[in-house]
């Protein structure tokens, strides 16, 4: 309790409060702009967090991401384009309801159930992370190797589109992580004589390139998006919400749990959570025929799940240092830069940081109701910001942000190269998020493998005979066979896979 108060004390600082406000507005804007994702928002936020203390840095990322995932619902309802991929699952339903004159109800449900979902996730994060951290204290390099391998496997399995492409993205990320001085002998690998590359590919410029610059390139290749902006009267957004809460209380609980669980799974993020909750919702619904034609139940379910997922993503990130999604992968990069090693020790040595994250989740989701309300009121102005002015602005942020970290032009070069790689990957159907997870998990996999081998004189059997290690190994192998398993189920049912069932 004392530490909890200490965490509250850390947040009750004028500077921190201002940062929370600014992050909230930033998150709402980026989330509501079609084509700008929450991951991109995180990548562009990182140069700022680099100059902050750890607590405000983490708090700003938490607040920003919660707001962005909610705000993605706004253009889904108004112009039928999801603001972030996490709103794609129920875009059709949101827009159909708007067309039926129920925009008020949709947007009210979006903001309210996003907040409730976020709070469910926060409660699960707060209750499960400390317990898992206790268990994780007993983990050695063998177990960490398997955890990282499990994270990589899960990333491949849930990657959108083809799994072969997801796998290649992961391997590319792992390869990028090998650039620089090797950990066993200090041998420079793939540096081609460059002194700047000895410390490896600088993480922040790489992220800004992969998620910022690549989006700018894609946007100018697509040209100006033209969409008619529905002018909707939004009077009292929260009318009838109490009724929805009572009617769908089981749905909210179920989707909150689904979302958080998917978040805890390494590599799966809020977009997957929304799709799974949508599918589950349809299965258990009394009115499945409404799905895709304007079902408020679908919006309640998927909208709860994608926000609860965010807190779940932080569980493996804080407890094991294994990212739950691409945003927490960036967070882990930030923590490393600040000299903090995410893992069970952080719970004992710097509990105030952990409590600050908990409180930030609660605060951000409580703030979501008034802030979200204002964002909805300003939404038609926000959606009118022309992209051909916005994109050059973002480009300049990418350049200056990459430069700012080490004051070197070399980092701008890294941003450039990664941006081009990111663009070509995405344009050819290769998911980009697995690349980041590869970059973050690569050193963990290699270091723990080499350490385990060197300290036991290459006794490989220990990876399989240590009890916890063996369990993690079996789980990893189960993940590998998961798609096969699912395909068999689908075949037995003779049904189309979930993604094709709903048009986005």
């Amino acid at each position: 309790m004392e530490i909890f108060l200490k965490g509250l004390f850390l947040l009750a600082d004028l500077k921190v409060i201002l940062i929370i406000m600014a992050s909230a507005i930033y998150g709402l804007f980026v989330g509501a702009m079609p084509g700008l994702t929450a991951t991109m928002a995180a990548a562009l936020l990182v140069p700022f967090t680099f100059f902050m203390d750890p607590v405000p840095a983490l708090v700003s990322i938490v607040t920003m991401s919660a707001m962005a995932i909610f705000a993605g619902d706004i253009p889904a309802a108004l112009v039928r384009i999801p603001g972030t991929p996490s709103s794609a699952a129920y875009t059709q339903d949101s827009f159909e309801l708007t067309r039926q004159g129920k925009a008020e109800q949709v947007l009210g449900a979006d903001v309210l159930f996003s907040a409730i979902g976020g709070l469910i996730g926060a409660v699960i994060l707060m209750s499960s992370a400390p317990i898992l951290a206790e268990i994780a204290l007993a983990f050695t390099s063998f177990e960490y190797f398997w955890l990282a391998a499990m994270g990589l496997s899960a990333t491949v399995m849930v990657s959108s589109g083809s799994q072969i492409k997801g796998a290649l993205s992961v391997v590319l990320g792992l390869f990028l992580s090998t650039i620089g001085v090797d950990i066993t002998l200090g041998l420079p690998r793939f540096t081609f004589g460059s002194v700047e590359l000895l410390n490896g590919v600088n993480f922040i410029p790489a992220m800004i390139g992969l998620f910022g610059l690549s989006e700018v390139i894609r946007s100018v290749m697509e040209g100006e998006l033209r969409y008619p902006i529905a002018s909707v009267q939004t009077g009292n957004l929260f009318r009838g919400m109490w009724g929805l809460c009572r009617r769908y209380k089981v749905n909210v609980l179920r989707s909150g749990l689904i979302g958080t669980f998917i978040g805890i799974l390494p590599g799966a993020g809020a977009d997957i959570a929304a799709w799974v909750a949508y599918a589950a919702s349809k299965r258990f619904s009394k009115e499945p025929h409404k799905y895709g034609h304007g079902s408020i139940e679908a919006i309640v379910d998927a909208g709860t799940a994608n926000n609860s997922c965010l807190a779940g993503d932080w569980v493996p990130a804080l407890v094991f240092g294994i990212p739950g999604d691409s945003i927490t992968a960036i967070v882990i990069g930030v923590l490393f830069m600040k000299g903090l090693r995410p893992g069970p020790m952080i719970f004992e040595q710097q509990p105030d940081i952990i409590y600050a994250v908990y409180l930030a989740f609660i605060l951000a989701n409580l703030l979501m109701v008034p802030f979200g309300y204002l964002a909805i009121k300003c939404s038609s102005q926000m959606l009118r910001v022309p992209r051909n002015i916005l994109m050059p602005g973002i480009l300049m942020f990418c350049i200056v942000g990459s430069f700012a970290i080490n004051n070197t032009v070399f980092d701008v070069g890294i941003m450039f190269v990664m941006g081009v790689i990111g663009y070509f990957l995405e344009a050819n159907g290769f998911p980009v998020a697995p690349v980041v997870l590869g970059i973050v998990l690569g050193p963990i996999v290699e270091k723990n493998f080499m350490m385990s081998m060197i300290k036991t004189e290459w006794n490989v059997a220990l990876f399989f005979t240590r009890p916890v290690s063996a369990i993690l190994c079996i789980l990893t192998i189960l993940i590998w066979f998961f798609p096969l398993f699912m395909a068999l189920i689908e075949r037995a049912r003779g049904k189309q896979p979930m993604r094709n069932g709903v048009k986005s």
Partner: protein
Amino acid sequence: MKRNDRIAGMIFIALGIFILTQTYSYPSLEKGHPGPGLFPNLLAILFMVFGGVLVARSRRLGASVESIEKPPKPTAERIVNACSVLGLIVLFVVVVDHVGFLITSALLLFLLMKRLGVSLLRSAASSILITLFINLMFAKLLRVPLPPGILSW
């Protein structure tokens, strides 16, 4: 998509082979245990295996479902747009130390916005506002030493 997949697969296979040529000369640990080359070699094999699967699969699938998702082919104008974005970064890096951040940024943003079809007045106003905003955030708030150049503020 089919042809692109084949090219992408071949690029990854080539990357795998390239890694192997580099790691060939890496030393091993004492008693001949694998060292710095182990992990890159494993990745090289994975690149070649997955790349190979991608190539093989692109041959097997005809002009199938995937072609529906294919976006319209980018026009020459759009490709010039993308090149201007990349060119802007290169120009920025070359010029910024001599001219300073404020002028470089405002000028390049103005040119890019014009290129993307924004009107003269709006381009001028927005490029100056964005530059001042970035200067405020990074130079004033975060105290990043942006190159001052001729004009310092």
